């Protein structure tokens, strides 16, 4: 102590010393690399292995893709242009593009029709997918199935028109009767629709198809990726309501309804889709009236819809089970009857919980539409394995075609799953 007071002070700091910069290996890229790639012996080995793997992959695929030939009329011509170098023959995609997308029988002068239907589909889906858009757009969504049917199949406009009128009348009847009793409205609507369809169907003249604005295209001429899209969109949109009905039926306390639903769901979930497609192609025809011909597309749609409805029902059952018991009791204590309680309280919440699961089923279903190639329908995979690879010009162009198919499915499926994640974040109303 005394030392300090007697001696003159040698040094006094006059300000704070500025912090020295962190060591070079603790900042920026170097730090990130050290922490994320080279933090230990095992990590370093893994990093090196991954780099080697990536290098091998790129070394083998990049020249092949970059050297690709886009203009040629056959594999032989492709090889001539490449002249011994490695390179892909993407010319098959440009040359066979219409076949890959529309199938090989769809009339070439009518390609604009499925194209227009596809663009309109995006418009119709927009208000369903993004609910910030004006609700009035849903009107177009409701009309869209009939427009799309008319565009793709062509023929007389009267058929979709009668179907549409049937639905509108059924809706009106439901509005009128459904206020008093859901059951009355429901059955009244069904009866109305059936009456209008039968009467209207009888009124359409036989010759209507012949001088129609759009030439009729039979179902067996549909093919390519268009067929996958059509099956996917139709079956998913049909199977959601059916799935909801099955899920509610399974929860019902009426033993008969419950057991019918349980048996249906468990049976469908227990067999592979292929067997159901076999049913569609060889067995279902036996169950229709003897002189009727129901085309393969419709039979396949029926079976795939049943298939995905069973899976969606299980997803929704999970959503229903996740709701606290209090929600059901609250609905009862408000004096709501069963349809009201379901529509206003239970289903909105249960469906919100089930959205990720439903989207998963939808993605799986879209991928499974490729299975129709097994029952000799010419979807994208069927076109590739059948007419294109079997042709003399393109015999042996495997990777370009299969890679293209894989890419198409990847883009669509990855897009849907990204949308579902966005929707989940969007719908999250709990505070985190």
């Amino acid at each position, binding site marked *: 102590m005394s030392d300090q007071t007697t001696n003159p002070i040698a040094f006094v700091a006059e300000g704070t010393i500025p912090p020295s910069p962190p060591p070079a290996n603790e900042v920026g890229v170097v730090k990130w690399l050290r*922490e*994320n*790639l080279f*933090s230990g012996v095992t*990590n370093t080995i*893994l*990093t090196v292995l*991954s*780099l080697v*793997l*990536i290098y091998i992959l790129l070394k083998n695929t990049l020249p092949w893709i970059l050297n690709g030939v886009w203009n040629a009329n056959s594999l032989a011509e492709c090889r001539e242009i490449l002249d011994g170098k490695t390179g892909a023959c993407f010319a098959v995609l440009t040359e066979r593009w219409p076949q890959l997308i529309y199938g090989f029988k769809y009339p070439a002068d009518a390609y604009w029709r499925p194209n227009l239907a596809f663009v309109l589909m995006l418009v119709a889906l927009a208000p369903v997918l993004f609910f910030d858009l004006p609700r009035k757009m849903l009107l177009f969504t409701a009309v869209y199935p009939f427009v799309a049917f008319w565009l793709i199949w062509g023929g007389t406009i009267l058929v979709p028109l009668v179907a549409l009128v049937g639905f509108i009348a059924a809706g009106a009847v439901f509005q009128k009767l459904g206020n008093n*009793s859901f*059951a009355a409205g429901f059955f009244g609507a069904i009866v109305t629709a059936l009456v209008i369809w039968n009467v209207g169907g009888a009124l359409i003249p036989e010759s209507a198809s012949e001088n129609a604005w759009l030439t009729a295209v039979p179902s067996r001429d549909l093919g390519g990726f268009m067929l996958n899209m059509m099956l996917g969109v139709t079956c998913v949109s049909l199977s959601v309501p059916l799935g909801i009905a099955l899920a509610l039926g399974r929860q019902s*306390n*009426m*033993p*008969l*309804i419950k057991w*019918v639903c349980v048996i249906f769901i*468990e*049976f469908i*979930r*227990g*067999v*592979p*889709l*292929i*067997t159901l497609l*076999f*049913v569609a192609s*060889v*067995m279902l*025809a*036996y*169950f*229709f*009236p*003897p002189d009727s011909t129901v085309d393969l597309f419709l039979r396949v749609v029926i079976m795939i819809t049943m298939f995905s409805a069973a899976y969606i029902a299980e997803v929704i059952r999970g959503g229903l089970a996740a709701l606290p018991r209090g929600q059901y009791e609250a609905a009862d204590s408000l004096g709501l009857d069963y349809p009201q309680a379901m529509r206003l309280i239970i289903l909105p919440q249960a469906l919100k919980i089930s959205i990720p699961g439903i989207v998963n089923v939808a*993605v799986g279903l879209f*991928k*499974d539409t*490729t*299975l129709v*190639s*097994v029952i000799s329908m010419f979807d994208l*995979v069927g076109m590739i*394995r059948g007419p294109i690879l079997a042709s003399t010009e393109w015999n*042996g162009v*495997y*990777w370009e075609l*299969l890679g293209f*198919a*894989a890419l198409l*499915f*990847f883009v669509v*499926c*990855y897009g849907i*799953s990204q949308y579902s994640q966005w929707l989940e974040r969007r719908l999250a109303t709990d505070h985190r």
Partner: protein
Amino acid sequence: MSTMTDPPKADFRLSMLINDTRYRSLTFQVIAAIVIALSIWYLGNNLIQNLRAAGLNISYSFLGDSSGYDINQRLIEYDSQSSHGRAAVVGILNTLLVAFLACITATVFGVIAGVLRLSNNWLVSKLMAVYVEIFRNIPVLIWIIIIFTIMTAVLPAPRAFRGDAATSSMLFDAFAFTNRGVYIPRPEFANGLFGATILNWLLVIVVLIGSWFASHEIEKRATLKQEETGERPKTFLVKLAVWLVPFALLMLIMGLTWDIPALKGFNFSGGIKVGGPLIALWFALSIYTGAFIAENVRAGIQAINKGQTEAAAALGLRPGRIMNLVVLPQALRVIIPPLISQYLNITKNSSLAIAVGYADITATLGGITLNQTGRAIECVLLLMLFYLTASLLISMAMNIYNASVKLKER
């Protein structure tokens, strides 16, 4: 409740059937029963009329008829003189074979990818994410076709192995990868203890199961000892011996030799031939389902609260024991149910064998037999029955497991 008086029964009105909750469910069920009965009658009636028009009847006697087609990949004796029923059995065994193999490899791929996706290593976790996304978003049928194409169009023909200027050579001089299939060495017993080969293999399996029980017992003893004294005896070497010694002895006694495939004439002979379709199906199902299992494993591990790991560390457990005793038992409860439903998916997806010509039940009974006999209804029904039985057995196993690991509360 008991104080409420019952409403007088006399004034029952017809409208009560629909408006009174006591009768309404009964009304609905009666209506439903009528609708169901009517539709069954309608469909059955159509079926009978259609069958009569086509001159068919429902009969399963075709199963006893000679099939007249050959099956390459088979586990039991079968030739074109055998019956359709036997062809179906060959198909069932093939389905079970590929499903069993794919379940094992898919689990391996899935667990590795799922664990690596949680790795601290940025590159590795991103690489695994890419694997999962690519394989989950592309149809399994396309994967099966891609791998089948590799098996048939990229691998060399057997003649590429011949001569001094051979362009291909066998791996380790024992494995040959050709476009006709993969040839691997076949283990054989020179002086087996039983006449039939299958009994010898059964003996091997029995010995392995015995080793498993023994090593289990050693673990249990070690745990007991640890509870008494606090010291855990080292068991690794003992367990290794218990596994290896009896197995090696048995192999020595039975005289294990390897039948190595060799090029004879235009093709390989000897060894086991694993057909291209089997490998394509097996591998495609494994990597495709592996991507799904990877997500389940990741979700399962992430579902375990970090507090569990920290609590275990606070108790003084080492990282390996934390994993074995705290994290895994809890994570498995989350992982196993979806894992088993993935096994179910593998079994069902193995029906895609028909796309590459692997003779599973769908390709034999639902493919060739159906086309040859024209017995569509019978074949499809039998096919469904098989898959339904398999699915129900697997989900029964799952339910039993779920019940046994359920959180026991209160």
